């Protein structure tokens, strides 16, 4: 059973961090507030928010954590991905060449939990550090220039970056891409796709507001007025 801290309570801790003081009221945790994280502890969530927001910072579009990426990662780690359902886990686990790919002997949930713990221990000021300092930590991690004891640094970075990126751009049914942040940013209309009459219309913008699998309307979130069911 995960620790029963509500997402809003975790956020309260977040807002004390200098880098995250600009979070809007309607933040990423709000949607799932009053529910505990499924997997992450509050400390882990705070650390991940700082890490993810270094990878995808806020600009005209939300940062990773503002777009629900921490919620996404929480759900992923609690689900089949975290449990190693997509990985051949038979031992032994000798080390190999980069060309031989991922050879971590832990399931992703454990790998990431231990990885975050090791990073928090090595970089105690990470959450409160400025972007430059956090970027430099992540650069070292991504370049395998980081001593995490038994844990491999670059695979840990790759895993965290993959999850962050997925959380920003995957369908909102997975808890991230809140308000279609990622899809709005690039102009991807989403899961409802029918372009037979448009594919050969060259250089014509197609500003269809995104819609996900769950039919949550994007754009400013409103259904066209004519399509609204109305009382007779």
């Amino acid at each position, binding site marked *: 059973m995960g620790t029963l801290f509500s997402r809003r309570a975790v956020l309260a801790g977040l807002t004390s961090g200098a880098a995250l003081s600009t979070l809007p009221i309607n933040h990423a945790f709000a949607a799932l507030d009053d529910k505990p994280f499924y997997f992450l502890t509050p400390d882990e969530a705070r650390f991940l928010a700082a890490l993810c927001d*270094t*990878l*995808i*910072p806020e*600009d005209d*579009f939300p940062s990773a954590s503002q777009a629900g990426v921490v919620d996404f990662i929480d759900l992923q780690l609690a689900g*089949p*991905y975290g449990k*190693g*359902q*997509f*990985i*051949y*886990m*038979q031992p032994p686990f*000798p080390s*190999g*060449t*980069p*060309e*031989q*790919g*991922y*050879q971590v002997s832990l399931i992703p949930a454990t790998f990431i939990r231990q990885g975050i713990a090791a990073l928090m221990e090595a970089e105690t000021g990470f959450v409160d550090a400025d972007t430059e300092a956090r*970027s430099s930590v*992540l650069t070292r991690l*991504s370049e395998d220039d980081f001593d995490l004891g038994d844990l491999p640094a670059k695979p840990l970075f790759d895993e965290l*970056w993959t999850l962050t*990126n*997925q959380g920003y*751009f*995957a*369908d909102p*049914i*997975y808890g991230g891409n809140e308000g279609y942040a*990622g*899809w709005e*940013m*690039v*102009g*991807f*209309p*989403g*899961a*409802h*796709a*029918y*372009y*037979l009459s*448009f*594919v*050969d219309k*060259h*250089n*014509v*913008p*197609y500003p269809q507001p995104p*819609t996900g*699998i769950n*039919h949550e309307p994007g754009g400013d979130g409103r259904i066209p007025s004519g399509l609204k069911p109305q009382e007779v």
Partner: protein
Amino acid sequence: MPDKTLPRTDVVIIGGGWTGLTAAYELAHEGQKCVVLERGDHRHDATSFGAPEEHDELKYALHHTHMMDVKTSTLTFRNNRSQRALPMRRLGSFLPGEGLGGAGIHWNGQIWRPLPSDLEMRSHYESRYGAQFIPENLNVQDWGVTYEELEPHLDFFEKICGAAGYAGNLNGETREGGNVFEGPRSDEYPNPPMKQPIRSTLFGEAAADMGLHPFPLPSANVTQKYENPYGAQLHPCTYCGFCERFGCGYFAKADPIICVYDRIKEHENFEIRFRSTVMRVEKSEDGQTATGVTYIDSDGLEVFQPADVVCMNAYALWNVHLMLVSGLGRPYDPQTGTGTVGRNYAYQTLAGVDVFFDEEIITNPFMGAGALGTVIDDYNGDNFDHSELGFVGGGYVACNQYHGRPISYQPTPEGTPPWGAEWKRAVRENYLHHAGIGVHGSSMATPDNFLDLDPTWTDSFGRPLLRMTFDFPDNDRRMSNYVMERAVEIARNMEHVRSYSSSNRAAEGSGYSIEPYQTTHNTGGAVIGTDPSTSVVNRYGQMWDHHNVFVFGACLFPQNLGYNPTGPLMGLAYWTLDHLKSDYLANPRPLMDA
């Protein structure tokens, strides 16, 4: 001893993908009782692949829900024999399928034919460039079957798929606008080409301006309503952008379920058993034939299914694995160069150019299809003069528009940091203004690239995993670089280009990596030919060692083509089935003298 032994059947077919279901269709109609054993589950386009649920990039494209389950079975990999092979713990470089339809469900639908010279590669190069031209360390060989022999079968498969394209060589007459390098076609494509988006149009214009020969990519994404020769009805593609790695709920991408399975499933001679994994092919005591197969059924029981004919229709790699664990044929020994099973494993070389347009060009990349694009074949096979180049083979150069799925499609110009604020801005600014030009190249077989069994790791049934030893041959690296440079020239000649950058998976100095996706075009390991010392099956797809075992799929390719393999391997499948039906069944025997 198996838990149970079933009554004999005429034909047992291992695998329910394109070749397996096709074999069942053709043989069932020939009066043969066919049992198909499929290790995965039943699924159907109507009920399993409908949008919008199917349009889930994370689930299908990245968590590989339609593909093989590596948790229970995978392979081990190393670049060379001096290394210890390690398990491919996650899918990456290639994505074999599992379940009804196999990988034919999640293909892109790029439907090609081999060049006539591809099928006679050694003879062709030796006659054009001299006996010494092919580098010594390459196992280049002829297929033993010619283009002329395969043509009716290639043509028939295109009709099964409702292929969309424009013939560049119709009965020997060359036609501009099609692939002028292709072998003669006996018929036009059954459907007209796909519509072209802006990026491939610009590519085609630039290529034509340089005297090259652009044409629409041949496509099994159907372009108008169509009924195939089996009576399957296909619908027009909607350009939804969820093709490769996804099933098609629109009935618009030809796949083995709607094109074949639906047309045979009710036939009295047809039976398919799901969740049935074949453990081994059983040999007769005299060693001349196979007696049937032993499989684990959906209840976990070990079952012996006796059969008069065994058809091996698993994915290329797993056909070879099954031969090795069954002791069929003689395993290849790289030390002595003897043996054939596992020999001539090959892959493909992928390179490309990323092109970034000015703001005027709006590509709408999400309007895509698996086989949507414009291509040139001027640098494929031996369509260009190799005499001064120092390599054999080639590849096509294509500007395609597959999809704009936002996790996988994040083009950024060279020099963009891999994450952070600048990366984010670059993704946002370039998403609608980019084109990828792909170089899809051949790969030659060498004595050092092969498949055998791993000494350490096992699958969930306790069988040793397949072990892959592979790196790109120097020949292929030179070839890939050469064709990539030609692609760069086209990019330079395209209108509205702000910047471009090139990359090559087979670049000099970098090893083949099992991790990034390249192609699901693994070939060889059980190759076709006319000489039992260099091939596992004769030119009819029949095993030299066991005449009632017929082998299908890309494992037959002696070396890999510069094309996507589904068209060629299905041409071979119909060729084999033709000889099975017209000759072998009435008089079972080796169809060629060893």
